[in-house]
């Protein structure tokens, strides 16, 4: 690609993503922007729970660790960081970033974007379309609600020329589209260009899923040096066309097929990928190999954006109890099967549990269990029991029943593990754009 480009990279694609490849990009990528996307659908509800326990928390617990790895290089190289690690408390995240910068001896400006939190708009009368009941009728306990903001929300923050932009809920591709639109002056009704920029963001937002992660399937799909797979960046032109690539010397690969697979990842209709910014159309995208690990992406377009903003409402989801136990050697499957019958019998008739209990034999029928039944020649079987319940005592009872297989179950069982985790459930609702009050607060260290 000749002429001017903006270099934009992905520093995280989910809350638990690796840190070393982001540091590498910050140090060697010569990037204009480095984007950290760390918010899955339910992450925000967990953030609300944390914030309700401690008002200074509720942002991404790895924020300091991630920023500490890249901040110095980004400040030195003039790379602006954009991230949704603010989760349920962007302002506290901004403050934490400022304090980190002080400790590192860096002077930085942080722009905090707020306005996605619409918890106050949710009432007992709010309809949950997926279950066709109101919040009041559902009996669910509200934890928090956040609307997906678009690039529009980030542009004013970029006007402040910050080193770091911190947001809560923003649509993943919008985290990338905003810096591109800001740098190139794209109009927010230039649907074709916004569609092209959205394709770039969509390709980058899951980091390694475009550079050879979630891809290897030997012997058909071989990925070199996957243990050291690099994070991606794109060289984006003024029209939104781009080259997707990665740093020299990193593992993985960027090929037409890694790009194609990621282009439709979590996309339904390729002609109508809905974001807060645009109805993007990926159906005429062209993908061409320009060089080793350099894939040109052109031809994404778009139409007018949706009227309303998708909003995820989080509710208390009770507890998820999980317990595991293993059998190996001759007859392992039969003994594990006997153990599942014991657990089922005792939960129902001794403990009067009416919750749905799932009993898997890992190695035999777990992930695809409800789809088919495979042959059971395996000699190393793991029993897994899982149950959701609002009753913590009953959750503990399931664990106890599996644990007691040590002494009361079939012969030769071992390796008990059990856990109980508080869970949240989420429902999508749609809110009018004019109900959102965007706010940008600039902090300086």
């Amino acid at each position, binding site marked *: 690609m000749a002429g001017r480009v903006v270099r934009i990279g992905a520093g995280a694609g989910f809350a638990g993503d690796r840190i070393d490849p982001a540091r590498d990009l910050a140090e060697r990528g010569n990037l204009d922007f480095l984007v950290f996307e760390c918010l899955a*659908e*339910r992450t925000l509800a967990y953030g609300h729970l944390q914030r309700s326990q401690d008002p200074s928390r509720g942002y991404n617990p790895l924020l300091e660790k991630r920023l500490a790895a890249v901040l110095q290089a980004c400040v030195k190289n003039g790379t602006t960081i954009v991230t949704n690690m603010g989760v349920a408390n962007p302002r506290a995240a901004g403050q934490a970033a400022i304090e980190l910068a002080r400790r590192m001896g860096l002077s930085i400006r942080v722009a905090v974007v707020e306005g996605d939190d619409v918890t106050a708009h949710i009432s007992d009368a709010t309809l949950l379309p*997926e279950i066709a009941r109101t919040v009041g009728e559902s009996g669910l306990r509200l934890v928090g609600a956040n609307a997906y903001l678009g690039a529009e929300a980030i542009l004013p923050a970029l006007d402040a020329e910050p080193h770091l932009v911190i947001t809560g809920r923003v649509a993943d591709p919008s985290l990338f589209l905003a810096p591109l639109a800001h740098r190139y002056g794209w109009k927010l009704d230039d649907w074709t260009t916004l569609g092209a920029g959205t394709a770039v963001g969509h390709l980058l937002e899951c980091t390694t899923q475009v550079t050879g992660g*979630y*891809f290897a*399937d030997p012997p*058909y*799909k071989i990925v070199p040096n996957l243990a050291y797979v690099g994070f991606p960046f794109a060289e984006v032109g003024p029209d939104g066309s781009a080259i997707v690539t990665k740093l020299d010397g990193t593992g993985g690969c960027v090929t037409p*097929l890694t790009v*194609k*697979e*990621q*282009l*439709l*990842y*979590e*996309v*339904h*209709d*390729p*002609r109508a990928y809905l974001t807060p910014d645009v109805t993007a159309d*990926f*159906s*005429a*995208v*062209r*993908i061409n190999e320009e060089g080793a690990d350099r894939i040109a992406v052109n031809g994404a377009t778009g139409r007018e954006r949706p009227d309303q903003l998708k909003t995820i409402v989080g509710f208390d*989801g009770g507890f998820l109890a999980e317990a595991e136990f293993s059998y190996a050697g001759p007859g392992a499957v039969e003994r594990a099967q006997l153990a599942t019958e014991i657990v089922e019998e005792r939960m129902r008739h001794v403990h009067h549990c009416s919750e*749905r*209990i*799932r009993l*898997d034999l*890992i190695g035999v029928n*777990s*992930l*695809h*269990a*409800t*789809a*088919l039944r495979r042959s059971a020649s395996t000699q190393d079987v793991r029993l*897994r029991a*899982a*149950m*959701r319940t609002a009753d913590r005592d009953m959750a503990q009872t399931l664990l106890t029943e599996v644990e007691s297989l040590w002494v009361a179950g079939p012969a030769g069982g071992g390796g008990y593990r059990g856990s109980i985790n508080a869970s949240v*459930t*989420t429902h*999508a609702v749609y809110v009018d754009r004019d109900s959102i009050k965007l706010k940008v607060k600039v902090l300086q260290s």
Partner: protein
Amino acid sequence: MKRTVPLREIASARTGDKGNISCVSVWAYNPKHYDDIRSSLTPERIAATWPNLFRGSVERYEIPALNGLNFVIRDALEGGVNASLNLDFHGKSFSFLLLELPVEVNDL
């Protein structure tokens, strides 16, 4: 010459999820197999093969310029991350359900 092969020999696949909806994209390695895959991998076949797992409708979108098909499968995730008791509540492993389906191809 017609031959029947597992889809995995001639295509790759990737699964994504949104709520209780699974989407699986399928990509022919060689453009010459695209039409065979399209003829064989109908939404009706996907729905009929695993009715206990894929409980809702199956839609298929075609991207011929990239030799790809995209399947959108509703009510596929046992309630999704909110409700599923499956270890793999995202259905990340579903791509390999499709990849083991036999497909009839011409001129392998």
